[in-house]
C-alpha cells in the first residue's frame, strides 16, 4: 500500500497514547476516604473479569481509532477501477508532446495538435503534488514543473518548426524519470508517431519505466511537401517529399517558383522526385525564391525558400610560368567558355602574390629554393602565413570545399602562421579552408589564398578529378572573394543573410526537416521495438497512464471505520458501566 502523505505515518506513534494515558492515570489517582470499602472490594471482585475485558476492549478500540485516523491522514491509495476521479501512487512522469511540424496536419477540420494537447493536458491534470513531472516538446527540452505550470505550457504550445527525434526524446525522458526515487515511473508519448520521427538506435528503456504511446490514426494521411529547393546551373531544383502513395493522377503535384512574389515558372513532380525550373537571366546580387505546392492538410511544408547569388564572373589572371600550370589554364578556359570567369586582374593565380590584383591565389614554387622568396613576398604583402617544410601526403579535408574532400595530396608544403600559431587563423581575415593530415592546406589570409600544393598531378590528384573545374570555379568566384556558401538550417521558413561590413557574404535558408512531410505512422511493433512503448488508443491510454490501475484515496473508508469504532468505543465505555 502506498500513501500520498507518508510523513503523516509518523503519527502512528500516537497509537501508544491510550496505553500511556492508562498507565499515567493509574500512577497518581486522587485519594479519598470511603467507609464502605468492603462493599467496593466485593463489587470489584465480582466485576474484575468483566472490567478487565472491558479495559482491554477499550484499549484496543482506542488504539485502533488512532491508527485509523493516522492512516486516513496519510491518505492511503487502494486499488480501484480507473476513472477520472481516481488517484495514483507518486509517479515520475515525462510527457512527450510531439508538436513538431507534422502535428499541424488538419484532420476533420481540427489540427492534429489539438488532439495531442488534449491528451497531454489530461495526463498532466491527473498529476498530484506527489508526482514529479516533465514536459518534452519538439525542441527536445525537458521542462520540469508543477502540473499547473506544465498545463500552461501545453496550452501555449503551438506547432513547432522543429522535428522531434522520438527515440532520443524517449531515451532522455527515461533517464529523467529513472532518477526519481518514486514508486512508479512513466513516459507518456503523445505523438502522431511518424515513422520518420524515429532516430537511430533504440531508446533503451530501463526496467521499471513504463512507456505508453498514443496510437496514431490507423490510416496514413496524404501529404506532399517541398523537401528541398536549390539553384544549380541556372535552374531551380525542387525536391518533392511526402507520404508515399499520396496523390491523384500519377501522384504528381504542380510546383510553382516565385521570386519576390512573382511567379517565375511551374513544374510537375511526384513525391520522391525532383522538378527543375529554369531561372531567367538575373542581374548580379542575392536572390530569394520560393518553391510552392498547392495547399493540402499540412500547410507548413507546402513552401520552401531558396537563395542564390548571381555574380559577375571573376576576372582571373593565370600565370602558367609562375604556378598556374596547364591544368589551371584548362579549367579557366572551360569556365571562361561557360562565362563563369573572364580574363582580368581581379584574381591572380601564381607562386607569389601579384601586385595590382585584388586577390592572389598563391601556390608553392616548383623549386624548393624559391620558397624563401615566396615567403618574403607574402610577408611584404602583410601576410601572416608562410610556406614551411614539406608535409606528409594525405587526403584533403574541409567543409568549405566539400567537393574535393578525400582527394589525395602526394606532395605539399606545410602552411604555418608566421606568428607560430599554425593551427588556426590569427586574425579576423584568416580562415583555414582545408587541411591535409590536420595541417592547413588551403588558407585564406586577408587578400591572399595559400595552397599547400601546386595544382598539378605531380602534387595532387585534384587536377585529374572531375571536381577540379568546380573547385577552380569556387576558388576564384567564391573562396577568393570570401563568400560563404548558402547553408540550409532547420527552422521556421525564412532567410537570413551573413554580412561582412557592407558586403553580403552568405545566406542561411531556414526550412523544415523534409522528413516531417512523410506522415506514415510507425507500426505498433516498430514503436515497441524502438521505444519500448505500448501503443494504446485514446481510452486505453487514459486508463493506463499513472501506474495503469486506478487507485482511490482510502482515507474515506478508514474514516468511516474510525467512526464505527468510535461509536463502538462510546457504547462500550457507557453501556458497560
Amino acid at each position: 500500500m502506498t500513501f500520498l502523505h507518508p510523513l503523516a505515518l509518523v503519527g502512528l506513534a500516537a497509537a501508544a497514547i491510550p496505553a500511556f494515558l492508562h498507565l499515567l492515570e493509574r500512577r497518581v489517582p486522587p485519594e479519598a476516604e470511603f467507609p464502605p470499602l468492603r462493599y467496593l472490594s466485593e463489587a470489584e471482585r465480582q466485576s474484575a473479569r468483566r472490567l478487565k475485558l472491558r479495559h482491554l476492549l477499550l484499549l484496543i478500540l482506542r488504539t485502533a481509532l488512532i491508527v485509523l485516523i493516522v492512516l486516513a491522514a496519510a491518505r492511503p491509495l487502494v486499488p480501484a477501477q480507473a476513472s477520472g476521479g481516481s488517484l495514483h501512487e507518486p509517479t515520475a512522469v515525462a510527457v512527450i508532446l510531439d508538436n513538431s511540424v507534422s502535428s499541424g496536419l488538419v484532420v476533420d477540420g481540427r489540427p492534429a495538435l489539438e488532439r495531442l494537447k488534449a491528451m497531454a493536458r489530461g495526463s498532466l491534470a491527473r498529476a498530484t503534488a506527489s508526482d514529479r513531472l516533465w514536459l518534452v516538446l519538439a525542441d527536445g527540452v525537458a521542462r520540469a514543473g508543477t502540473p499547473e505550470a506544465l498545463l500552461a505550457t501545453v496550452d501555449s504550445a503551438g506547432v513547432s518548426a522543429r522535428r522531434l527525434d522520438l527515440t532520443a526524446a524517449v531515451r532522455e525522458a527515461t533517464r529523467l524519470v529513472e532518477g526519481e526515487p518514486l514508486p512508479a515511473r512513466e513516459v507518456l508519448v503523445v505523438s502522431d508517431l511518424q515513422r520518420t520521427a524515429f532516430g537511430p538506435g533504440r531508446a533503451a528503456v530501463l526496467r521499471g519505466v513504463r512507456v505508453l504511446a498514443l496510437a496514431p490514426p490507423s490510416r496514413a494521411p496524404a501529404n506532399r511537401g517541398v523537401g528541398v529547393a536549390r539553384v544549380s546551373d541556372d535552374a531551380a531544383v525542387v525536391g518533392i517529399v511526402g507520404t508515399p502513395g499520396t496523390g491523384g493522377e500519377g501522384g504528381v503535384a504542380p510546383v510553382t517558383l516565385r521570386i519576390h512574389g512573382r511567379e517565375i515558372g511551374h513544374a510537375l513532380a511526384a513525391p520522391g522526385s525532383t522538378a527543375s525550373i529554369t531561372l531567367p537571366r538575373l542581374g548580379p546580387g542575392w536572390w530569394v525564391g520560393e518553391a510552392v505546392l498547392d495547399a493540402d492538410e499540412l500547410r507548413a511544408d507546402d513552401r520552401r525558400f531558396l537563395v542564390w547569388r548571381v555574380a559577375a564572373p571573376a576576372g582571373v589572371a593565370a600565370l602558367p610560368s609562375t604556378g598556374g600550370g596547364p591544368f589551371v589554364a584548362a579549367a579557366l578556359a572551360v569556365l571562361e567558355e561557360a562565362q563563369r570567369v573572364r580574363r582580368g586582374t581581379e584574381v591572380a593565380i601564381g607562386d607569389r602574390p601579384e601586385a595590382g590584383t585584388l586577390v592572389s591565389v598563391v601556390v608553392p614554387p616548383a623549386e624548393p629554393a624559391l620558397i624563401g622568396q615566396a615567403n618574403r613576398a607574402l610577408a611584404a604583402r602583410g601576410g601572416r602565413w608562410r610556406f614551411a617544410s614539406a608535409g606528409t601526403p594525405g587526403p584533403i579535408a574541409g567543409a568549405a570545399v566539400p567537393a574535393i574532400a578525400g582527394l589525395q595530396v602526394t606532395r605539399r608544403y606545410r602552411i604555418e602562421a608566421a606568428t607560430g600559431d599554425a593551427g588556426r587563423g590569427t586574425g579576423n581575415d584568416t580562415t583555414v579552408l582545408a587541411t591535409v593530415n590536420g595541417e592547413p592546406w588551403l588558407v585564406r589570409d586577408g587578400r591572399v589564398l595559400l595552397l599547400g600544393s601546386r595544382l598539378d598531378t605531380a602534387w595532387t590528384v585534384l587536377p585529374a578529378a572531375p571536381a577540379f573545374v568546380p573547385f577552380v570555379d569556387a576558388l576564384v568566384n567564391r573562396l577568393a572573394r570570401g563568400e560563404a556558401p548558402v547553408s540550409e538550417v532547420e527552422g521556421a521558413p525564412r532567410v537570413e543573410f551573413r554580412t561582412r561590413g557592407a558586403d553580403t557574404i552568405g545566406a542561411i535558408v531556414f526550412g523544415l526537416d523534409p522528413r516531417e512531410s512523410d506522415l506514415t505512422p510507425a507500426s505498433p511493433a516498430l514503436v515497441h521495438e524502438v521505444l519500448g512503448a505500448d501503443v494504446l488508443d485514446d481510452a486505453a491510454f487514459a486508463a493506463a497512464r499513472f501506474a495503469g490501475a486506478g487507485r482511490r484515496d482510502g482515507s474515506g473508508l478508514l474514516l468511516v471505520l474510525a467512526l464505527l469504532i468510535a461509536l463502538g468505543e462510546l457504547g462500550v465505555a457507557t453501556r458497560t458501566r
Partner: protein
Amino acid sequence: MADVQRIDLLDPAEVARFGGIEIVAQGVVEGFLSGIHRSPFRGFSVEFTEHRAYQPGDELRYLDWKILARADRLFVKQFEQETNLRAMILVDASRSMAWRGAPTRLTKRAYADRLAAALALILLRQRDATGLITFDEVVREVVPARVKAGQWARLVRGLVDTPDGRGTAAQAALVRLTSLLSRRGLVVLVSDLLFDRELALTALRYLRHRGHQVIVLHLMDPAEADLSGPPEVRYRDPESAASVVVRPRELARAYQATVRREVDAWRTACRRHGIAYHHILTDMPFGMALRLLA
C-alpha cells in the same frame, strides 16, 4: 403544605442548623407527636386513665362501645403506659460514622445523635426508662436507663461527650453490651453496620434470646448507596490502612448491586430472628425515620 413546615419533616442538615442536639430533638419530637394520634410505643401493660371525644383517625378498637350504646356519642378510651419499659439506645460512634458524602449533609454520627436524642425524648415523655450506650471498639459512654427528671439531659450529654472513635471492631463492644442489658426491654441499635454481619447478629440474637425487643437502624449516607466520584480514585478505609483504586463510573452498577444485596441480607437475617430492621439514609427527615419505628 402545612406538613412541610414541620421541623421533623425538613431536611436533616437544615434542621441541624437550628441549634444543638436538644433543640433539634425537641423540635423534631414536637412535630412528630403533633402528627400522630396515638402513642407510637406500647409497653407490656397499660392502664386506663380517661375518656376523650373521638377524632377521625383514632383506632376503632379504643372506642368505648358502652358509652356509644348508652348515649349514642363517640368516646375513645385513653391508656397510660406502665413505666416498666426499659429502653436502651445503642449508638455506634466508630470512625466510619464520622463520614459524610457531601458537605451539605450530616455525618452519620451527627444524624444518629439527633435521631437517638429525639427517640429518647419520645420514650421519656411516655415515662419509659431510657438509657444510652455509645461504643466503637469499646463501650465509651453508658447512661443507665432511668425515667427521672433530667434523664434526657444526661442522655444528650452522653452523646455529646462521646468523641468520634478510631476503629470499628464493634463485635466486642456488642458482646459487652449484652452483659450491661440485664433486664429485658427495648434495644435500639443505631449504626452503619460496617462490621462483620455474622458476629453482630450473634450478639443481637443473644439479646433477643434474653427477651429484648431489638430494633436495628441501619444508617447510610446516600453517597454510600450510589457510587460516584472522579474518573479514577483511591478510596481508603478510614478505620484501617486498606485502600483500593477504582473507577467509580464503571463500578457504580456493580457497587449498587452489592449494597442492595448487603441491605437485603441484613433485613432478611434480622427478620429471621425477630429483629426489626430499618434502612435509613442520612438525608431522610427525622420525622420519617421516627415514623419507621411507630
